[in-house]
């Protein structure tokens, strides 16, 4: 494990910002990088965590929630981005806000070669579908980046992904 980031600390900071912005629905496919955030969302009585079987479901689920005035976020590992593009048609076609948090594999310091192809394609794929990418490399960027992503999604009604890089998260030794 490289990097010294405290997962409990950064997850709590992201959570508080999302909860303050009225995000109540945390849909996710589990990943090492988002498990603390999910645990916090499960424990907090303001929020609900919804375990998905495939990341694409979360795009449609968050859009459905938006229709009835509920704000959602979609959490996934970088590999899950590959499951989403067709569903992301909704964001442009239906003008839905979409907030994603992508925890990276296959970038800085990755030791598993299988993670590279999708990891390196995350931002081009998201951008091709009209999703703005806000990348976090250092801890002191996190709070402002999270606020920016929230504003983009819920004030401006855009599709946006907060990309938590492996430089920030630390690269796993597996």
């Amino acid at each position: 494990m490289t990097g010294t980031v405290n997962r409990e600390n950064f997850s709590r900071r992201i959570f508080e910002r999302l909860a303050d912005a009225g995000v109540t629905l945390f849909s996710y496919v589990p990943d090492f990088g988002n498990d603390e955030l999910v645990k916090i969302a499960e424990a907090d009585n303001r929020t609900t965590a919804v375990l998905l079987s495939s990341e694409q479901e979360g795009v449609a689920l968050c859009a459905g929630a938006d229709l009835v005035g509920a704000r959602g976020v979609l959490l996934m590992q970088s590999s899950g981005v590959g499951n989403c593009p067709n569903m992301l048609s909704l964001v442009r076609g239906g003008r839905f806000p979409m907030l994603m948090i992508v925890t990276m594999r296959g970038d800085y310091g990755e030791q598993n070669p299988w993670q590279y192809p999708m990891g390196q394609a995350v931002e081009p794929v998201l951008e091709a579908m009209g999703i703005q990418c806000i990348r976090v490399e250092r801890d002191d960027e996190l709070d402002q980046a999270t606020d920016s992503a929230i504003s983009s999604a819920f004030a401006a009604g855009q599709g946006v992904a907060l990309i938590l890089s492996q430089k920030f998260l630390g690269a796993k030794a597996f």
Partner: protein
Amino acid sequence: MMQRMASFEKIRDARDGAIVVATYTSAFEWRRVDPDPLNFVSVGAMGQASSHGLGLAIGLPEQKVIVLDGDGSLLMNMSTLTTIANEAPDNLVHFVIENGSYEANGGHPIPSQGRMDFAGMARAAGYAHAATYEGLNQFAADLPELLSRPGPVFAALKVEAGDAPPLDYDYDWLHSADRRREFRKAVKPLLKD
């Protein structure tokens, strides 16, 4: 086998203020049977109707949500069965209109045509109730119970392919921002502060 239009008329009669999420060809037909602002039309990417429905059902737990899914659409997002069963929203009713074909793009057969037991899949995934209907009379008789029992409820409706009169594929209507505005306006009185 039943006529899709006839099954939709039964659902309309039993709807009782429920939100209805209809997808692809079903959406056009449903629009004709029951034009209501509490309809949400799910198109743009196959398979998303049930995930939309789950989002609506979680966001509005006191409100009945009916999904009119397609068999081809469900196949494109089959993992939704597990996700819905695990979340277990008791206000969600998931109908699959089973005509064995990808009707919206020319009526090509789906891979599982005639072999797949969709209700069996939903039951195995853990839905609270799952059933298959071949005939309209039995479906009509059971419909009040399907809509009132705790969900998630699943029912596969075996319908004849392409039984509708020529449909008006009005994509302008389908994709219009006005449609979603109309829905949000209709749903507003149902929201709690």
